[in-house]
């Protein structure tokens, strides 16, 4: 399945962060590329959602919903800006 981009998880990110996040700038923890969340490569197949860096391809965000709770892994993100600051 062809991946989407970070725009497609705007709703999921509002669920998790409580704010619009697609315009927020993040830094990849692997290659240091910086850019808006909207530019990430996003795979939405079950069982979870995976976002990869568009430059180096490493995983920067993982979201998995387990029994109504969304588990979030942002270990691949070196930084993520403040919502509303974009």
């Amino acid at each position, binding site marked *: *399945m*062809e*991946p989407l981009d970070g*725009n497609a998880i*705007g*709703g999921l990110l*509002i*669920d998790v962060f409580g704010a619009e996040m*697609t315009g927020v700038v993040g830094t990849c923890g692997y290659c240091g590329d910086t850019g808006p969340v*909207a530019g990430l490569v996003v795979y939405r197949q079950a069982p979870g959602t995976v976002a990869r860096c568009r430059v180096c391809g490493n995983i920067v965000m993982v979201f998995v919903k387990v029994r109504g709770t969304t588990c979030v892994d942002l270990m691949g993100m070196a930084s993520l800006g403040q919502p509303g600051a974009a």
Partner: protein
Amino acid sequence: MAGTAVRGRLTWQVATVAGLTRETPSVCTIELEPPDWAGHRAGQHLDVRLTAEDGYRAERSYSIASAPGERLSITVERLDDGEVSPYLTDELQVGDELELRGPIGGYFVWEPGDGSPLMLLAGGSGVVPLRCILRERVRTGSDVPARLLYSARTLPDVIYRGELGQHHDGVEVSYTLTRDHPPGWTGHTGRINADLLADTAWPAAANPVAYVCGPTSFVETAAAALVGLGYPPERVKTERFGATGGP
């Protein structure tokens, strides 16, 4: 509790289908009446959720086709192997209910106060949010010059063709047909590339802002070509959809 959505949270709501318009054999515009809609910005999308009888749920994002202030609508292209789009384009009836949430998105958004020339690049149904931007431009009386370059497989695949032909006053619409073109076609042919954009895009010196929406390969090619023409990367806003549908 009904009507007490927490601010900053998105709440699923049940909208009523108020109208259906067949745009092409595989594309349908769906007018929606949600009970609670605070308004949206041009370029945003909404999430649609279908729930099967066994509880299985499928969720997709669709770009909003209507300008802010107009009746809310989305335009959906049927993907033959899709879980959601065939139902929306072929089975949905006026009066049906549809679960949605939105508006969503703050990156791929155009504000009418932005005075920069608009360079809009659409691949297939990627034209939907760009149509919203053009309608918003008209609705707000903006006089920023705008160009839309729309890549479609064939002329009958062009969505909103009649409407796009009616834009005047600073809007230039051109097409490139990638698969087949009618006899005597004077527009562009073939896939979008750097040469075509060098001929059709605003020069970077005009300080344009670009919105590129379509399949991933289209967006990658178009965005790279614009940057190659001197557009700063942050002035090239991109939205990609894969084979799973919008936005």
